[in-house]
């Protein structure tokens, strides 16, 4: 099934799922309350947004310089930096390292970029055991489904469903307590860290000035992934770069404020190399894989380049009424919500994925919330325009030309109004049925009639 049809079919199912609607609404209401509290503590939230936007603008618009600085500084202290133009190349690089190390088990901390390149599937195919250590990712991995939300992978599940899942897959005793469920996962995963040959992470930011990656998390699983295994591999998109270490003094709290509502996430850690001389632990080998995967195409689009400023906070997903009503899985993309709708056409193809840009009421809540001021909903309009230019629908083009022709000529406008009034008489015969030309509307809503006297008629009468 084509993506557009798949989206519509699943959206139809999800929008009728009142349990889902209620669950997501409750979860996000809690989030909104803490987010607003955290925002209120800022002396000037809007100024902070502007500064964050400028920091990312500087990074992305000098991307080559900062990437070179980042890479050089990492290599100077023993990190092996790899560059991958495509997801396939990235997978080959990572598999190459794993094979060379004769590794058997890999522990992963959350990395949306690894979802993007479908890394887990590739590793599983080769017979490597991959364990997701982030609780939410661990849960969806057991359920064999993709993450529901880029920050909260298991947001769509109740504790009852998670309890059943654990009982079935881990043999644990059923429980309604989120605390007990978390402890079950903690116990199971503990040994995985200790025994894993390879620790795999993503990264939230790449600091050019000091040659470090920055990883933000609440659980501590990324820290353990980066501490115990002998080899550490980190995968990140090239756009993650920030110029200076101090930029994080602003970006880290903003990421958490909008991402989860927390003033600051529990662990914000910077990794600048493998274990250095004198250090008691840490990986002997540290590999950083830089991924392009069509980001350079988005970079070339000056109008939409700011979409690469995204710090993956998930804030736009949280406020999007479309996301709330259809749910994260309906998008069938790695990145869902408004940012996903904006960038997926660039990463996967415009014609196949333009429907996500049309599946929006353009309410602008996303743009308003974005901590780095990406012009999200305007980019949805840009995608729509680009799609129409590239491959116009003859039907729509003719329809809009006809509309323009009529609306620009008052006499024709009046004639079509008379025709409308006539058709209106017959409308009740077909209203709400398949023969109704306004079926898309009238299936669920009533349509108001044309007024007895329109405003223009009233105005003409007046003068």
């Amino acid at each position, binding site marked *: 099934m084509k993506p557009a049809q798949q989206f519509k079919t699943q959206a139809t199912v999800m929008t009728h799922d009142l349990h889902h609607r209620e669950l997501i609404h409750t979860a996000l209401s809690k989030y909104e309350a803490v987010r607003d509290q955290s925002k209120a503590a800022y002396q000037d939230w809007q100024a902070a947004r502007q500064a964050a936007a400028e920091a990312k603008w500087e990074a992305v618009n000098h991307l080559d310089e900062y990437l070179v600085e980042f890479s050089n500084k990492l290599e100077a202290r023993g990190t092996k930096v790899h560059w991958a133009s495509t997801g396939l190349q990235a997978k080959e690089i990572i598999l190459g390292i794993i094979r060379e190390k004769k590794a058997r088990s890999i522990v992963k901390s959350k990395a949306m970029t690894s979802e993007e390149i479908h890394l887990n599937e590739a590793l599983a195919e080769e017979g490597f055991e991959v364990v997701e250590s982030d609780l939410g990712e661990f849960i969806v991995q057991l359920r064999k489904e993709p993450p529901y939300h880029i920050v909260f992978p298991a947001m769509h599940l109740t504790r009852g469903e998670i309890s059943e899942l654990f009982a079935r897959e881990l043999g644990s005793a059923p429980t309604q307590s989120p605390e007990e469920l978390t402890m079950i996962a903690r116990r199971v995963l503990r040994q995985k860290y200790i025994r894993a040959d390879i620790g795999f992470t993503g990264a939230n930011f790449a600091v050019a000035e000091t040659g470090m990656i920055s990883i933000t998390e609440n659980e501590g699983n990324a820290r353990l992934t980066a501490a115990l295994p002998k080899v550490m591999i980190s995968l990140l998109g090239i756009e993650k770069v920030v110029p200076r270490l101090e930029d994080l003094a602003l970006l880290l709290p903003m990421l958490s404020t909008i991402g989860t509502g927390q003033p600051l996430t529990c662990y914000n850690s910077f990794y600048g190399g493998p274990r250095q001389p004198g250090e008691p632990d840490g990986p002997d080998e540290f590999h950083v894989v830089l991924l392009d995967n069509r980001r350079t195409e988005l970079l070339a689009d000056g109008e939409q380049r700011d979409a690469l400023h995204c710090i993956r906070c998930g804030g736009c997903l949280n406020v999007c009424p479309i996301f709330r009503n259809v749910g994260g899985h309906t998008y069938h993309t790695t990145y869902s919500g408004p940012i996903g709708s904006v960038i997926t056409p660039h990463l996967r193809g415009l014609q196949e994925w333009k429907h996500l840009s049309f599946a929006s009421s*353009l309410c602008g809540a996303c743009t308003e919330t974005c901590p780095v001021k990406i012009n999200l909903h305007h980019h949805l309009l840009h995608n729509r325009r680009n799609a129409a230019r590239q491959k116009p629908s003859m039907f729509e083009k003719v329809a809009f030309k006809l509309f*323009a022709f009529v609306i620009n000529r008052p006499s024709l406008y009046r004639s079509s109004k008379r025709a409308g009034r006539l058709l209106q008489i017959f409308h009740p015969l077909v209203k709400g049925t398949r023969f109704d030309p306004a079926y898309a509307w009238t299936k669920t809503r009533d349509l108001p009639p*044309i007024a007895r006297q329109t405003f223009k008629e009233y105005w003409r009468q007046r003068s």
Partner: protein
Amino acid sequence: MTITLFVPCFVDLMFPNVAISMVRILERLGHKVECPGEIACCGQPAYNSGYWDEARTVAVKVLEHLEGSEAIVIGSGSCGAMLHVFYAELFAATAYERQAKALAKKCYEFSDFLVTKLGVTDLGARFPAKVTFHDGCHGLRELGAFKQPRQLLSNVKELELVEMGEQVCCGFGGTFAAKFPMISTAMGEVKCSLAQKTGAEYIVSNDSSCLMHIQGLLTRQGSRMKTIHLAEVLANG
């Protein structure tokens, strides 16, 4: 002042009373109101669908007819956003770029015009009912209209305003309502449910397109709740 009222097609055809109310209010305040009959559409449908050339065909006519206006009040938030924000994009790098930017400075959403430009918050209106307010997204986020409708409503005699407590899109979104009716309907249901929880008799809004969608759902649901435009409330009594 001579105020140009731009009445978009759906307000003209289906909600004329909204525009009539606006005329009455502005005239009562002592201004002259002009309603150019030659223009009926801001070009948003074509623009939103990605057909910018066809949108420009319509929008150019609007630019030309509104060129000489002193101040333009637009009868709907989404059309207002089109003129105030999106024309600059639509006409960027064309011969009309400067004109579009100049026009934007003269365009106002109705409540914003009354409160910010005219400095009026009390129209001597009376509307004895419990109401709740729905902020049209374009008016809210593109035109900065939030306090103004509430300031105006606070001076309406015997009116009780109860807030819904959550800010969320009603789901109309122009062509979105027809292209993705299931999502549009779900969003509308969420809005109606929020409104119903307030116990209000009326949902008031500054955007007729939202009201068309919300009312359509309420009627289909058999709800007793009614919808009314802000201008109609302010013109009452």
